[in-house]
């Protein structure tokens, strides 16, 4: 079975014991995203220290309903970007997006950048599940843009 390639231990661990879950104060930006095809939802808050793209991601908190992939992805993401500058975190997000869009082709994901998130490589072979893996990331981008006052 190919299932093990998708559901790596790391993913199942994060799914069963998600990190940083729950909505917390304070926060400067919040976003609610849904996956219209399956109804999965995430509400995500960003707390920044400092201003502009140099600001540091002081906290990411979220409430989410969805499959193992979307849950684990939210957990891995929060853990990965808390403590980074917004700029660095965005770069990680871009790397993750590239991995997801690789469709399992010959992309060499940067393990140093992606850390646990590299476990999602197997998901990129299943187009219908890519959105699950990206849900939290999209919400985070949106919430951060709001925190930075870049969008309404």
């Amino acid at each position, binding site marked *: 079975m*190919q299932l093990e390639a998708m*559901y790596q231990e790391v993913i199942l661990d994060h799914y069963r014991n998600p990190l940083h879950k729950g909505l917390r104060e304070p926060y400067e930006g919040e976003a609610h995203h849904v996956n219209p095809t*399956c109804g999965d939802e995430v509400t995500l808050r960003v707390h920044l220290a400092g201003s502009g793209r140099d600001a540091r991601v002081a906290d990411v908190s979220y409430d989410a309903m969805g499959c193992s992939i979307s849950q684990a992805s939210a957990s891995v993401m929060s853990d990965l970007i808390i403590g980074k500058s917004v700029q660095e975190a965005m770069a990680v997000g871009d790397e993750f997006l590239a991995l997801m869009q690789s469709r399992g082709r010959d992309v060499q994901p940067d393990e140093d950048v992606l850390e646990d998130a590299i476990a999602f490589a197997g998901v990129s072979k299943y187009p219908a599940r890519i959105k699950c893996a990206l849900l939290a990331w999209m919400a985070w981008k949106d919430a951060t843009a709001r925190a930075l006052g870049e969008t309404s």
Partner: protein
Amino acid sequence: MDLLPEELKKDFPLLRRTVRGGRPLVYLDSGATSQKPLRVLDAERGFYERHNAAPHRGAHLLAEEATEAYEQARASIARFIGADPGEIVFTKNATEGINLVAYAMSNAATAGPESERFKIGPGDEVVVSEMEHHANLVPWQELCRRTGATLRWFGLTDEGRLDLDDLDDLVNERTKIVALTHQSNVLGTVPPIKRIAARAREVGALLLLDGAQSVPHQPVDVTDLDADFLVFSGHKMLGPTGIGVLWGRRELLEAMPPFITGGSMIEVVHMEASTFMPPPQRFEAGVPMTAQAVGLGAACDYLAEIGMDRVHAHEEALIAYSLERLTEIPGVRVIGPGTTEARGGAVAFTVEDIHPHDVGQVLDELGVEVRVGHHCAWPICRRFGIPATTRATFYLYNTLADVDALADGVRQAQKFFGTA
């Protein structure tokens, strides 16, 4: 059990293929779209290779033949549901058929007095139910938004039946139209249409049935149905994609303003204004889905030859067996009626502590193709307090072995995720 012969599967080329590393395909997603028998594929291709032309537009031989093929298809489809060919309007899918009626109703505002019956505005009401597919919900929300009318709906019982306690209150003198599913694509529920139709008649409301899941799976005769409109999609009943049907009572179609306008639905055109043809042409603007109509005609003939009562009995046997096989698995909960009574072939369920996406992934890996999510009927999930379900839907080509594969797959998912 009244099962159809397994050889039937051979008529469907796609069902011979394998998936995910050579596994045989177990297709349990016919509720989303059905597979096509050779007969339909050949009819469509034969049209393109021999008779292709724009119907109702030319006087040359090919145009004659194309018109004949198109109208014979209309006749086959009409026969299939006991209707008059003049009452069959071709649309691109069921969704367009519902939108057609909803837009015709708002267009009635600026149409002549013959369309009085369709006029709708503030104070008027539209009634749907909590188990509607989005196709039979959103167009009515939008109609209400456009016209200021009010949307109301039937709730559901815990068993997934329509809650008719409020029938007399919900359907009242202010009701312009009741738009209901004829078979739920998630719960499988078949509502008691006659009772609702009687109430609609009483108060002078129109009744539209969403037959997207009924016409493919049970014998439907419009003369017996007591509805005013019925819509369905070709692709869910062995026909091509890109074709659907709106059936309407002749006198209603005759009084109804057009929706999409353009070529070949007009009578006389001046720059200032135009007049329109009688139905069904009035509702078929532009070069139509000719080859698809021919394909759907062939699908209806194929189904009619097998017999819709036999198709229905076959599916009933599969549903009964799958309800049995699924509910014996600990942690599995079927959403919708637990017996085959007034129930069609959609079996939606949850598996404790495993998200439907993850259940579906394991099944897919095993070659069992089911649908996961809200199945375009989100309010049902909200009603039952669940994020989504896994749904198996059956058709005449499915077998008891397919049901076994489903049940075994669910158990494997439980094993994989360590919940059983």
